[in-house]
């Protein structure tokens, strides 16, 4: 099965072949889960949204014509599934999870800690800001693409992005004090 091309695997998955579907899952599950988790800002919701994204994708596989890369097509489905599901759960109370402030931070301590703090800071952003920040700064969408996905103007997308970046800086402000004491640039990775 692993010798097959992606197009062949997709054809088999289209026909409901369990091995082919699992292969696609194993290949792309981390990508799907990452974007969905960041949009959801919640582990339990993320798993539900990711499952929904996969169900939609497998259901829509026969419509995949190969005009774009499969990963791009799947990613867009995941984003849409997460955003739609999140709208349904807008009434949930926004949790203000405390930052892991007691963890010692150094400029070159390894990426994991920095990643954890970035993820935690993103989780604290209001939904609208978080979505734009994720789509633009993490996923590389343009403001026009974001406008299309979120149903807002590109100007609104920009405005939300700048606010989100500024808010992130506030959340992460503890980082640079220590880093500057060490004379190193805070975000050099």
């Amino acid at each position, binding site marked *: 099965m692993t010798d097959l091309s992606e197009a062949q695997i997709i054809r088999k998955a289209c026909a*409901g072949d*369990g091995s082919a579907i699992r292969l696609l*899952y194993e290949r792309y*599950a*981390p990508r799907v889960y990452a974007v969905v988790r960041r949009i959801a800002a919640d582990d339990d919701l993320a798993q539900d949204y990711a*499952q929904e994204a996969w*169900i939609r994708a497998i259901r829509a596989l026969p419509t995949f014509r190969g005009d774009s890369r499969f990963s791009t097509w799947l990613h867009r489905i995941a984003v849409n599934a997460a955003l739609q599901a999140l709208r349904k759960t807008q009434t949930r109370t926004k949790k203000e999870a405390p930052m892991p402030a007691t963890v010692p931070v150094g400029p070159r301590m390894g990426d994991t800690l920095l990643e954890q703090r970035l993820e935690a800071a993103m989780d604290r952003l209001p939904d609208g800001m978080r979505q734009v920040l994720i789509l633009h*700064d993490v996923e*590389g969408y343009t403001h026009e693409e974001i406008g299309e996905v979120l149903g807002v103007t590109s100007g609104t997308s920009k405005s939300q992005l700048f606010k989100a*970046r500024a808010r992130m800086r506030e959340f992460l402000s503890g980082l640079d004090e220590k880093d500057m004491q060490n004379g190193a640039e805070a975000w050099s990775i």
Partner: protein
Amino acid sequence: MEHLNLDTLARLVDETPSREERHHLEDCTRFRTELALLQGQTHALGELPDLRPPRGDWAMLEARLMSEGLLRHDRSLLASTPAWMKVAATIVLFLGGTGLGMALDTVGAADSRMAGADGAPFSLVSSTAGSLAEAEEAVRLYERRYMDALVQYRQLLDSEGSPAGASSPESRLAALEYLVAAGQAAVQQAPADPFLNGFLASAMAERQATYRAALQEGSADDWY
């Protein structure tokens, strides 16, 4: 000159500063530093790695896909299932049918008998269940017996060094995840069904025990 606020600096991560903004940045070390930090933050966000889904995610998805008819049974997967799991599944199906029969047939019951795990014969179908409550109790009893029989079976496999008994915690866990997902789906369909609830509880308990075993052995690398 008016100070640049953080939102403006956040814009300058992507956009060229106006002449006034450039002058301000040239004159103010603090804001140059802040802009550099914002640029670093943006770069770091773009470098964030993908995230692993939680354990059991595939099993849940597989169960949903199957329930929606989007995924077929895979013969090769069945062939790779450890023998003891196949036996367990057979016993579950057999006892499931028996339990259902007992729940439905509270008037007359056939006098079927078979040998228990210890060799002693025991009645599979209660001839004395005169009420639904008694039938439910009987189902619980046979469920416990099934679990005991399964444990004995595993012990025998282990003691005899059977390849089937030497399955890894990961593959066992994957099979249990599937059973739990199937049990959850079944309980959603029939929330008050005592057999289905008992089966789900047993599968979840077994999965928990296997989790612990896998963690203790430090071999839990398979995150699916």
